[in-house]
């Protein structure tokens, strides 16, 4: 049954709609959300199995053949991202049961949560440019609601900035779609790729390509990340985890899809732009991560660094680097979700998010401490853990493509990641406990979530060979866009 491809979108959509009707029954909401999240993981696994054995899956909506109808395309890259996103979202969902306060839960938190997932999965699976815009908006509008839910002063202030930036970038997205439609007369991605190749990617199409790069970079935090550190500091930690793990990755996915499928004919221009933006992102993100002394900002700048690193993999554009970018993206969704969950636990345990007011947590929460330490090593890319394989592949690809400076910046940024996270570990967990009454918190369920995600991070590192067999299939489609086009447009 080829409708399988629509299920990752339909399940959270139906869940969100059902949850609207049970506003006061929080326990029931939690139960239905969990069931839906688990169902989504299973669907994603079946999808990956099918793609692994049968190649790229496509689903023509309403039976209209592309380019006339909207087509959903599940290649390995999209399916792996759907799986990782659904695993992380299950973890964050269970973390929210403890960490989100009852008032927020009653005001449709889980509904917005699932609508956000609809937008994320839809963006991964769609094969149409304007449909991508619509799913972006589904995701963004839910994120506006989530970021402002609760209405504290900080949230109100940051939401207006976040909202303004995203309205402007959505406007630019529509403008870019308009130009593209005028230039080549289609909106289906596979058909666009053909038409752009036929037209020869000259002056006008290059301008449009750069416009798309600006649009997606605003969403992904690639160089144009000035809004990100403030906005992501405002909401509670579960929402922050959801944003840090998923939102920027969707923008990054859109960049990778656009520049490996549609605008591939003049890499000297477009990929050089991506390369310089990646370099600036890694440097500025690294500086930010080192500069701050509060946990949300350090973590937010770490999100930015990894966005730069994946973009570097795209800019290098060798098969190795593309495989590495896919691998690193998967690792990063998992690890960043876990990082924000652990960060949230630390903030609750210490009662503050300022590092200077913390200390000595290792005596009371040794498990959390060593989990955070392991995660820090994984994020830096210490060999047995998950960050290693992606970093090696991207760096090797970068060196093969002759990008020595960028490779050095990439490796240098790893040191800044290490420094900033170990600073958190040292100041929060070592030293003496501050005076005064410290909050007593129950950690059983949240540390189970964190441990589960950490086990996945470790397994992904140890079983890198096994994961790679899937990642290579994803990277193959990125390196050879004809595979994608042939799967969508059947002659």
């Amino acid at each position, binding site marked *: 049954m080829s409708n399988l491809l629509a299920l990752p979108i339909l399940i959270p959509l139906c869940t969100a709609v059902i949850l609207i009707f049970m506003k006061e029954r929080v326990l029931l909401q939690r139960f239905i959300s969990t069931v839906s999240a688990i169902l989504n993981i299973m669907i994603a696994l079946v999808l990956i199995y099918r793609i692994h054995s049968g190649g790229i899956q496509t689903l023509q909506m309403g039976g209209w053949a592309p380019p006339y109808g909207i087509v959903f395309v599940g290649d390995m890259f999209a399916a792996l991202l759907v799986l990782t996103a659904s695993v992380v979202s299950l973890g964050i969902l269970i973390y929210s049961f403890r960490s989100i306060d009852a008032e927020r839960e009653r005001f449709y938190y889980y509904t917005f949560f699932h609508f956000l997932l609809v937008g994320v999965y839809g963006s991964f699976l769609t094969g149409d440019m304007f449909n991508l815009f619509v799913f972006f908006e589904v995701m963004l509008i839910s994120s506006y609601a989530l970021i402002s839910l609760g209405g504290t002063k900080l949230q109100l202030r940051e939401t*207006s900035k976040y909202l303004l930036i995203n309205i402007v970038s959505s406007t630019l997205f529509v403008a870019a779609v308009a130009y593209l439609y005028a230039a080549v007369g289609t909106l289906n991605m596979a058909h666009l790729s053909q038409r752009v190749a036929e037209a020869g990617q000259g002056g006008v199409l290059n301008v449009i390509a750069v416009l798309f790069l600006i649009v997606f970079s605003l969403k992904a935090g690639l160089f144009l990340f000035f809004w990100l550190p403030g906005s992501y500091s405002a909401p509670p930690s579960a929402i922050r985890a959801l944003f840090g793990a998923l939102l920027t990755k969707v923008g990054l996915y859109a960049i990778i899809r656009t520049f490996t499928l549609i605008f591939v004919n003049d890499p000297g221009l477009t990929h050089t732009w991506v390369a310089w933006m990646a370099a600036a992102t890694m440097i500025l993100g690294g500086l930010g991560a080192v500069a701050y002394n509060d946990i949300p900002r350090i973590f937010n700048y770490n999100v930015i660094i990894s966005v730069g690193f994946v973009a570097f993999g795209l800019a290098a554009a060798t098969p190795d680097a593309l495989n590495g970018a896919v691998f690193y993206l998967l690792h990063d969704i998992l690890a960043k979700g876990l990082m924000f969950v652990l960060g949230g636990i630390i903030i609750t345990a210490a009662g503050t998010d300022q590092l200077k007011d913390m200390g000595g947590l290792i005596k009371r929460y040794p498990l959390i401490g060593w989990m955070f330490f392991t995660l820090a090593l994984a994020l830096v890319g210490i060999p047995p853990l998950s960050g290693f394989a992606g970093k090696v592949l991207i760096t090797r690809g970068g060196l093969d493509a002759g990008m020595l400076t960028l490779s050095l910046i990439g490796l240098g940024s790893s040191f800044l990641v290490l420094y900033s996270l170990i600073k958190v570990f040292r100041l929060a967990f070592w030293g003496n406990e501050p005076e005064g009454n410290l909050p007593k918190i129950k950690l059983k369920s949240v540390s189970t979530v964190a441990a589960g995600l950490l086990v996945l991070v470790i397994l992904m590192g140890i079983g890198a060979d096994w994961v790679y067999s899937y990642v290579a299939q994803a990277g193959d489609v990125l390196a050879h866009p004809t595979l994608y086009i042939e799967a969508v447009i059947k002659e």
Partner: protein
Amino acid sequence: MELIMVVAVGILFTIGVYLILSKSLLRIVLGTSLLTHGVHLLLLTMAGLKTGAAPVLGGKAETYVDPLPQALILTSIVISFGVTAFFFVLAYRSYQTLGTDEIDSVKGEER
């Protein structure tokens, strides 16, 4: 005709950007709605303004105008409608809670 429309779109964008860069939150919201007006006109213009019947079958016309951009604009209009409504309410809430609608004066680290 396209030229006139493009100039009009350019003017809308200019005013929109100017308003977004101002201090008052209300002017910023107005700026964003001008931007979306501009971009919808742009979508209509870029698809071509050749004369033809409205895209409704049964008119027995020789040619029709392109129906696709009209569908895109309709989608985009309702989306920006929703977002603008949210932005207005957010501005109202901010005015109530923060006591000002000047974007400059809401700095600081207080929560």
